[in-house]
């Protein structure tokens, strides 16, 4: 596995990370599609994940909990927005306080895209924090101003963040 690109955009509140794997897309897809494989990588070693429900279809739910060193359980859920095996997956993630109802607003929306070339697969993961429910279509007028200002922000962040 090699991470080939990372982009952090604080104002758009997105993190994009691109990794390359030495396996065909069908194989890489399984780490999402097979709950037993998902459990082996989703939680950090100190907080292993246990997947309870795993319905990777549009509108489907995935529920899981991570077990901490003290035996405490952190419950969370995904709601599947779209799925196109073995190419793409989009879902929202949210916290739950127990294994009960999952009506808290999502904390993150995550998009996964797999592209296979010559037996290798690049996986692009885009996380947007505090996602807006109705999507975003910035007006053409503001967009130009935004791009200008993004340059400014980059400049400022480079000076304050070595």
């Amino acid at each position, binding site marked *: 596995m090699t991470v080939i690109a990372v982009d952090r955009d604080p104002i758009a509140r997105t993190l994009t990370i691109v990794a390359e794997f030495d396996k065909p897309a069908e194989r890489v897809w399984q780490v999402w599609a097979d709950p037993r494989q998902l459990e082996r990588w989703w939680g950090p070693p100190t907080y292993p994940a246990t997947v309870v429900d795993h319905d990777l279809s549009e509108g489907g739910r995935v529920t899981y909990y*991570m077990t901490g060193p003290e035996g405490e359980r952190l419950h969370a859920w995904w709601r599947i927005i779209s799925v196109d095996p073995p190419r793409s997956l989009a879902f929202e993630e949210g916290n739950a306080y127990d294994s009960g109802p999952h009506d808290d607003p999502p904390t993150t929306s995550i998009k996964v895209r797999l592209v296979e070339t010559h037996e290798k697969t690049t996986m692009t993961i885009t996380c947007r924090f505090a996602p807006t429910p109705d999507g975003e279509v910035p007006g053409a007028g503001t967009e130009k101003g*935004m791009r200008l200002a*993004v340059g400014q922000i980059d400049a400022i962040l480079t000076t304050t963040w070595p």
Partner: protein
Amino acid sequence: MVVGRTATEERRADLIFRALADRTRRDVIRRAMSGTLSVSALARLYPMSTTAVQKHVAVLEEAGLVHLRRHGRQQLVQTEIDTVAKAQALLAEFEQLWRGRLDRIGDVLAQPIDGDRA
């Protein structure tokens, strides 16, 4: 959720990202970098009432993303670059989380599948 972060940090992160989850507010942050625009000057830029813009500015202020300062009869809005940098640092935390996950995916892919018939 990021394991190891305290509840207070989690709430703060949530406050910042929720404040950023609006196009007008993101635009205000960008335009208020120089700190020379007043609330009413900002209000003229958007197709909404001054009150609506004031509300957006209040959300940003609560998240620590802008502060207001008096300049004569005007209230100038100034972006808090430290908080923008804080959002940047939060993304860096998530990047570490994902780098760990991607490493572990690499490990999973390197091993035969459990119960593999092969």
